[in-house]
């Protein structure tokens, strides 16, 4: 890889991290409307999906984890960092496993599956932290929501990938 290409890649990663972070921060500012803990849209993950299918999995991983870390810093919720980091790790591992075998046509079901893995990671972490399995009570509610929002985010990133020529030039 040429030096200028490396620079381009780095700049792109920075840009996508900034986009994801902005979406994440706006979402964190919204008041939670549902009484289910940990339930949110997760629109920032659309950026991760897009990057994974346009720039590759490793770039997506870098963007995802720097977004999680910076998001926790900026939102001032370090107590939630562990949950989002573990959720991110689970869904990222799943994405890295299936990335090679799938294309952007499969995003409509890959994204909900990633969202499910995210929730599973979060609930498992929460049950470890709390020392009780009672938290599994919320898993079906969370996964129902995850399937819906994951489907929507999958479509979103697939449509973005249609216009990849504009965004990643």
């Amino acid at each position, binding site marked *: 890889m040429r030096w200028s290409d490396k620079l381009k890649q780095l700049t792109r990663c920075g840009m996508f991290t900034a986009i994801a972070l902005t979406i994440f921060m706006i979402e964190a500012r919204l008041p939670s409307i549902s*009484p289910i803990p940990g339930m949110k849209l997760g629109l920032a993950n659309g950026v991760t999906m897009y990057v994974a299918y346009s720039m590759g999995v490793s770039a997506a991983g870098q963007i995802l984890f720097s977004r999680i870390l910076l998001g926790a810093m900026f939102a001032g919720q370090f107590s939630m960092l562990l949950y989002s980091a573990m959720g991110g790790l689970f869904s990222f591992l799943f994405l890295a496993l299936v990335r090679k075998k799938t294309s952007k046509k499969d995003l409509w079901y890959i994204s*909900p599956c990633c969202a499910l893995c995210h929730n599973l990671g979060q609930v498992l972490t929460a049950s470890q932290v709390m020392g*009780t399995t009672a*938290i599994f*009570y919320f898993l079906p509610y969370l*996964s129902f929501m995850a399937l819906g929002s994951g489907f929507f985010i999958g479509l979103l990133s697939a449509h973005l990938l249609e216009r990849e020529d504009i965004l990643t030039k």
Partner: protein
Amino acid sequence: MSEEKQTEVIEEKNQETKSGDEFEFQTWRKENRKPLTLMISLVLLSMVGIWYTQTLAEQDIVTVYVQGEKLFQVDLSSVKESYTYDVVQGSHFNQILFETNAVSVVEANCPDQVCVLQGKSSEAGRPIVCLPHQVLIEFVSEGDEFDAVVG
């Protein structure tokens, strides 16, 4: 007219838009049979899970966990007069209200306020959680020992 509508919906539903190609739902469905079945079964599975949580039997004893440690247990059926208990950890605080056959977090200074939003819990052992403060109120079928908590 109805056909137009149908193709519109289908185009929204997926990304198979090879430039200029008319999208056919039937062929798409045949090509994507496995993931489609997977998605539908996952949705059904989570719905069954939600239905299952609604059918759990009512329980009277609650255990309060803080930072993964069991703090105390209360038998809600023996609570005659409602009282509050403050869980204080440094600057974090959650005020739990125990009533006859119901428990709720009435006040907290956590950023998301999800624990307060969860309201009163008495039915079917729905736990109350405050993720940022790591406070959890769980319903159990049988308590091991009773710590009397006076409000």
